């Protein structure tokens, strides 16, 4: 099997092309740093594997996602590369192209976004690029799939892609150094192209340096670099060796672009400029963002989500539940089976499934934000606030993704340049209220705040963000004592998200929720139901004598000061650690009602408006779910930080709920 790697600058459409060339689907969006991991897919024509790498500007990585790509090129040996370049940003993109050509593998150049470039009045001549670089150049529009058939047909025979014969002359001094380093390298087996290794070493690429120092003594080669650098300095050619190499490349690229590009009719980004004038306005920008968020929540929870959810609830509680009951009776199922299926499974899983409409609409909104290019602007708007809290605006992209699910959000933090900022973002992520916590708020908001559902739910999200900011200040001051953060964000041109992409990306996010409903929520529901059905006194006991009641009763006294010291509330918290959705499933089972109105009735008797707020805040904060804990461990590579993230959230949740309930009581609320 041959393998081909997709390489290119961030946000140039590598993953879009990957999705059209392979039968898999990966996450796409309009900002730099969507792909943070190496993804492998099979080419549609069965000719081999395609590897999608995170975007990089050069082979010298700054952030962790870039490290993944650079590492791949050094350690693995793809048979060929597809270098995707953004035709509207050719100069910047070609800097990486030259380094890839020096790498020496057979390479295809995918000239992407020619539609965007043409619309801006930039015309690139692929023949000139082909002739000067000596590789095949294919014009593409990866978003619509135009040109992908040609790519696929070239990839049919990867071995037929000609080897690259590109050689840039770096001037007498540097060439001498390259030759001497190549001499030193000649003994070492299994290295990529030696000239490329030499050049990367001269550019002080840390990955190459690490690779070489494992195999040999690098002292002599570094001395060659140093002497070359001082020669360049004494001839006043450049201040440093990396600078010299870069300037030689830039000179070549400029001459190439003059030949290959016609920019005589170039136009500014009209739409983007006009939108930015309003959306990133120094006074209007932030209020507009808050307004958009409010409308988004209003639409998700009140205008569209709630009516759809009611319809679904009517179906599950009515025809489905009754139908299953009748069917079970007609086949003569035992009382146990009947109760397990109707009360346990339909009650537990169905109780969560009724929130599918709200969750999918929320995912649709997030997908729209991701694909439009607005996400990067939010970073810009939030940066000064975030800076005061010791973090940078870029952390806001993961935070917004975290409203969907914390797991991909923590992965998204990889594109943040500074390790300290990345760590802070990861640790604070569990405070972003994910879609799994949503059913709890929706349930309680419907009972206690029917007139202000969107506001009640939104306030939980705001509470999470506020605590994240406050703790961020605290953590960055006391746990990380190093320098201040840096901030730079690329602002891609706005674009209207395509319907197909939106649908696909919403489905991919929502699929996980449905899968959970069929696995962990189902399993959780069955176990919880069994624990309510059985007790120390045998099977089919009264609910108050069941194992679940005994177990919840152990926790209940601890929760008494928070206002919900019942075994029912207590027993939802432990399964909630597996998946937050199970909190609602458990309630459905405990209160023995398969439909929402019945459950709402029960809850209104056990909780008060005040204790319901306290409970919602507790669910918001109390612990990252199992999957999130797993990804925190993976990304921080430290049990200490993982346990810390669980510990601080538990303490925070307890204090916040305690304050809400006790202060509320003092103020005479109930």
């Amino acid at each position: 099997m041959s393998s081909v790697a997709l390489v290119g600058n961030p946000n140039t459409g590598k993953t879009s092309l990957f999705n059209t060339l392979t039968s898999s689907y990966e996450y796409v969006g309009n900002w730099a740093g969507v792909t943070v991991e190496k993804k492998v897919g099979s080419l549609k024509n069965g000719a081999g594997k395609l590897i999608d790498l995170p975007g990089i500007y050069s082979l010298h990585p700054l952030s962790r996602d870039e490290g993944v790509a650079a590492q791949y090129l050094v350690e693995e040996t793809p048979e060929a590369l597809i270098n995707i370049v953004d035709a509207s940003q050719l100069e910047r993109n070609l800097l990486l192209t030259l380094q890839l050509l020096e790498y020496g593998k057979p390479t295809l150049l995918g000239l992407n976004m020619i539609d965007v470039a043409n619309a801006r009045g930039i015309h690139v001549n692929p023949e000139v690029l082909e002739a000067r670089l000596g590789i095949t150049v294919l014009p593409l529009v990866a978003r619509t799939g135009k040109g992908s058939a040609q790519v696929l047909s070239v990839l049919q025979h990867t071995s037929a892609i000609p080897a690259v014969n590109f050689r840039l002359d770096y001037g007498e001094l540097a060439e001498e150094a390259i030759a001497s380093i190549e001499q030193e390298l000649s003994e070492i087996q299994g290295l990529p192209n030696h000239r490329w290794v030499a050049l990367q070493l001269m550019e002080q690429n840390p990955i190459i340096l690490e690779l070489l120092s494992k195999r040999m003594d690098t002292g002599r080669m570094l001395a060659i670099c140093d002497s070359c650098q001082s020669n360049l300095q004494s001839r006043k050619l450049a201040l440093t060796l990396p600078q010299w190499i870069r300037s030689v490349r830039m000179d070549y690229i400029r001459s190439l672009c003059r030949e290959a590009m016609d920019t005589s009719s170039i136009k500014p980004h009209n739409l983007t400029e006009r939108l930015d004038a309003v959306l990133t306005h120094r006074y209007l920008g932030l209020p507009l963002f808050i307004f958009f968020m409010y409308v988004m929540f209003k639409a998700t929870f009140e205008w569209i989500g709630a009516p759809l959810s009611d319809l679904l609830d009517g179906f599950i509680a009515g025809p489905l539940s009754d139908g299953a009951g009748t069917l079970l009776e007609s086949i003569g199922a035992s009382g146990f089976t009947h109760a397990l299926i109707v009360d346990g499974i339909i009650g537990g899983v169905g109780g969560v499934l009724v929130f599918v409409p709200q969750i999918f609409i929320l995912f649709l909104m997030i997908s729209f934000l991701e694909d439009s290019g607005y996400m990067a602007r939010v970073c810009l708007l939030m940066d000064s606030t975030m800076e005061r809290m010791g973090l940078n605006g870029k952390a806001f992209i993961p935070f917004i993704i975290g409203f969907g699910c914390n797991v991909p959000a923590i992965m998204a933090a990889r594109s943040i340049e500074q390790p300290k900022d990345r760590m802070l973002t990861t640790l604070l992520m569990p405070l972003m209220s994910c879609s799994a916590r949503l059913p709890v708020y929706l349930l309680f908001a419907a009972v206690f705040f029917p007139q202000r559902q969107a506001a009640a739910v939104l306030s939980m999200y705001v509470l999470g963000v506020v605590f994240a900011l406050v703790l961020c200040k605290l953590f960055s001051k006391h746990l990380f004592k190093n320098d201040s953060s840096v901030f730079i964000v690329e602002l891609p041109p706005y674009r209207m998200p395509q319907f197909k992409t939106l649908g696909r990306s919403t489905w991919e996010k929502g699929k996980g929720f449905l899968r959970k409903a069929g696995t962990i929520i189902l399993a959780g529901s069955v176990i919880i139901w069994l624990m309510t059905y059985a007790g120390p006194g045998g099977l089919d006991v009264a609910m108050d004598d069941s194992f679940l009641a005994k177990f919840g009763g152990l926790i209940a006294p601890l929760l008494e000061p928070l206002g919900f010291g019942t075994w029912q509330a207590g027993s939802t918290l432990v399964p909630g650690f597996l998946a937050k959705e199970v909190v609602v499933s458990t309630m459905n089972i405990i209160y023995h009602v398969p439909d929402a109105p019945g459950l709402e009735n029960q809850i209104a008797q056990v909780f008060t408006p005040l204790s319901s707020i306290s409970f919602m805040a507790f669910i918001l904060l109390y612990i990252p779910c199992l999957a999130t804990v797993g990804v925190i461990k993976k990304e921080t590579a430290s049990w200490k930080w993982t346990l810390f993230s669980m510990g601080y959230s538990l303490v925070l949740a307890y204090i916040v709920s305690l304050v809400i309930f006790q202060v509320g009581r003092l103020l005479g609320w109930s």
Partner: protein
Amino acid sequence: MASTSCSLLRLQPGSTCSILKIEGMNPILRRRLADLGVSEGVVVRLKGRGPFLGPVTLECNGQLFAIRRKEASRIEVNVS
């Protein structure tokens, strides 16, 4: 033609200038700017300023990006 040099921050939004030197900037940011093609001699345009003394938006070779004011003040430019 007389040209004057000043900090990038002193420019009016919408005006264009060429970079004279970049000094004392955080090395990570410096590298990232170089990746985006921003270095000495390159023409940039100041597009706007963010809220609450927030970042400034710059354009270079048709690419828009934003950096903080403190960092932008390290960029000395030539206005012609």
